[in-house]
């Protein structure tokens, strides 16, 4: 009982730690991406930090719940008490913490919108550096106040000069120095994680605003994610259980991401529209169905395992 209640303390600690790490990373990323070559910059920006704080809360609270599963695998105690605490915390995340974080975010964005608008209009390109452009490299000898520049462009190793050419003809966004964008902007798996977090932050925001089917679909995603706890007692080896939980957590995230951002689901929806099956032609209903496919079996497996394998993950006495 004591150990189960200890889970809530772990949850709070994790939630705070993950949110602070998230906010700090968000702030660093935001400042780094707006660095200008040769200019000095202060890395602590309270607006970025607060925006990052609000942005991190939903993901951090879900991750804190997820971490509890690992904690419970490592420190097994009464499975039923653990489950009750876990369910309460999961509902707390979905019904209280995430909606509150969106309200917090709205309050911050209204107070910082002017500042972010100003920074978006600022030109960060400076003279004296080689920068990569689509067909080679460019070097500005002078950058003028009207956002035009003189310099040299090197294409396939051939250098040629130019004068008074608008910076926009080289770079789309003047509020980010391409030197740092190329060096900092994440690629591969990190870029995928960031776009996933951005997408679901937006979806979550609209879901809580839209209520009804929107909210139900988002809730189904949350419940499916939390139901991976059911896999924590599948194997005799703790590492195996941890991997099961991790893989299903990522799988559910990925499938939900695909529903909103893939051609496969567009063609599936089009197929149902063609067949006049209106119920299944809505993205949110498909999301609810897919998440239910995970939620129901995982919950059943969890309950069955809790009954049958009450001493799972326990360290036995060594003879």
């Amino acid at each position, binding site marked *: 009982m004591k150990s189960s209640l200890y889970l809530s303390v772990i949850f709070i600690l994790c939630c705070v730690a993950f949110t602070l790490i998230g906010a700090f990373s968000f702030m660093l990323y935001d400042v780094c991406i707006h660095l200008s070559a040769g200019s000095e910059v202060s890395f602590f920006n309270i607006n970025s930090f607060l925006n990052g704080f609000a942005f991190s809360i939903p993901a951090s609270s879900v991750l804190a719940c997820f971490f509890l599963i690992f904690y419970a695998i490592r420190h097994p105690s009464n499975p039923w008490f653990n489950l009750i605490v876990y369910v309460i915390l999961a509902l707390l995340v979905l019904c209280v913490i995430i909606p509150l974080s969106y309200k917090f975010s709205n309050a911050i964005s209204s107070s910082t919108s002017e500042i972010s608008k100003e920074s978006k209009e600022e030109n960060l390109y400076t003279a*004296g550096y080689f920068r990569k452009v689509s067909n080679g490299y460019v070097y500005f000898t002078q950058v003028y106040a009207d956002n035009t520049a003189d310099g040299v462009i090197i294409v396939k190793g051939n*250098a040629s000069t130019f004068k008074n050419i608008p910076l926009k003809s080289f770079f789309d966004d003047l509020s980010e120095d391409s030197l740092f964008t190329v060096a900092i902007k994440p690629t591969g798996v990190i870029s995928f994680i960031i776009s996933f977090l951005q997408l679901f932050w937006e979806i979550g925001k609209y879901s809580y605003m839209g209520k009804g089917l929107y909210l139900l679909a988002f809730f189904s995603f949350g419940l499916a994610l939390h139901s991976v706890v059911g896999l924590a007692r599948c194997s005799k080896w703790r590492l195996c259980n941890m991997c099961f939980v991790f893989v299903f957590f990522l799988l559910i995230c990925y499938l939900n991401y695909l529903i909103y951002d893939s051609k496969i689901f567009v063609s599936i929806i089009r197929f149902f529209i063609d067949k006049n099956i209106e119920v299944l032609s809505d993205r949110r209903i498909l999301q609810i169905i897919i998440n239910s496919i995970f939620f129901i079996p995982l919950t059943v497996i969890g309950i069955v395992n809790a009954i049958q394998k009450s001493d799972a993950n326990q360290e036995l006495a060594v*003879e």
Partner: protein
Amino acid sequence: MKLSKTVFLVLLIETLVAFCLCLGVGFLFFEEPDWNLSNFTLYKFQSGLLIFIKLLPAIFITGILIGYSWGFGKQKNNPTHRFSDIFAIYLKKVLTTSLICTSLCFIATEVGIPLISYSRTNMEENSKNVEEYISLAKKNLAIGDYGTALFYANYVINIYPESQEAIDLARFIEESQFLQRKENSVVEKSEIPSIKTSKTSEMTIPELMTMAQNCYSNEDFFNAHYYASLVLEISKSTDGNLALAKQLASDAWNKLSGIDAFENDLSAQVFQRKKDGYVALTAGDYSKAYYIFYDLLEKYPLDYDIKNFYEISKELLSTRYFFIDETLDKQQFEKYRNVFFTLPRLDGGKDIISIKGITSINSTGGRIQYLRGFSIVSYDKNDEWLMDFFVPYAKMCSYPLENLSDELINYISEQSKTRFVPYVFLKSVDRKYENIFIEPRFEFSENFNSDISTTYIMPIPFEDFAMLCDVSHGPETMSLVSLYKFSKVASDYGYSSEIYSQALINRFSFPLILLICFILASIIAWNSRILIDVSFKFSWLLLFPIIITLAYVFVQCFRFLLSLIFYAVLSLTFINHGAVFLSLFILLVLLFLCFLRFVSLKSDSVNV
């Protein structure tokens, strides 16, 4: 089985299987690129190898995690209190394994990746350049620069001997009369002629005088005049030999002029040609002298005078120009591609330099390098354009500082103790035909008056040139030594110091990051160890690919987060160059916390 043996066995088998799978992926899933590759099998092999090296940290993390998880489970000592002695022993074992894995990952990343990238870039560039060079050959032919056109055509033939288009082009230029019509477009600034060679420069004035006198007495008047002229060139006005050398040179020349008894007309013609060549040599027209003696040597290879003055004129020619055929096979051995940087001009302006490719001659210790596609754009101190030029190939040598102007010597001495600077020859000539040469094409601003030169001196220490070349590999693959030096001066050469300093920290910290990951993996391994009564199941092998994927994601995220922190550390300007050490200190603290966590582990069960 002992703990370490178990872990090493797991690591070895896992790494070998992963290596084979990565190579398999490279061979099966890499499609042939658009451009023609000379060795596609090697390209695929390298692709697989690159995947393996990138996954290597994740592979080792998985091996350590599963190996120790299994190994710890089989141990009978399971302490139930924190900071037990047994964990100090375990820590030693874990640390040894981690250090070995870290070293392997570090070597693979720092040595393997640059080598593979270098080889792949070479393959890609060689294939891509063929089309570009054919079009350049046609373009130069159209504008009447036949020497350059022939150079590009021959270059393609050298890379792809079966290229019919290049063969036709080269034949067309060679067989036509175009080459005869070309005239020097670049009027070079006059230089004081010198007839010193590497051989004669080692001789003292008395030795040269003796040689001159001996040659005179043997009626070898060409050499008598040559050695006497050398004495005149190198001796000071107060030297006692000066008057005698003048007399000897004058006598030898009079003798040469007075020779009129020849066996036949041919002998007279040969003598006259020799004399023309010799006159051109002493007047500083090395190019003319070289082609005269080259021509004579072809016809009379046994003539000692011709052979001797051919060698002298060839050596003297190489102090101004280089031969086109020296560059023909260089591109496939290029060490650096797309090198560009800025250099300060002594008048306060700057030169923007771009080089398409650089081949270093290893036998000279990199003292001689061939620069392909060498171009310079110059600006004055008000950033106004002054001039630019381009040459398809240039040759660079190290040049002693003492032969330069005082202004340049002072400028270089302020930066470094080096005694050499990079000296670039811009004009190349054909070994056989006088009318085939490649020279730079200049464009000048109306307000800029300057002597045209076929040489260029870079106002930097010679060692810094090697560092600037290395920059072309990018901050992630350039050598750590160059990166360390360059991070401090990057902004002087047109690069961002912040990015190179961050890359330096990233690379220096990589072993520490790996060590932290390995210790964390062994902590998880203890917490999730296979219990003593459970036997290993075959289906558990599926965990390997899953954990490798998860570990890869974890390492990527961890490194990304740390790279952002390193930027923040760099922004603390008050610590200046201490950013590297501060960042390493942060990681060492993290590592210490990992050690602390490891030795504080304990078992929940009690030994009965």
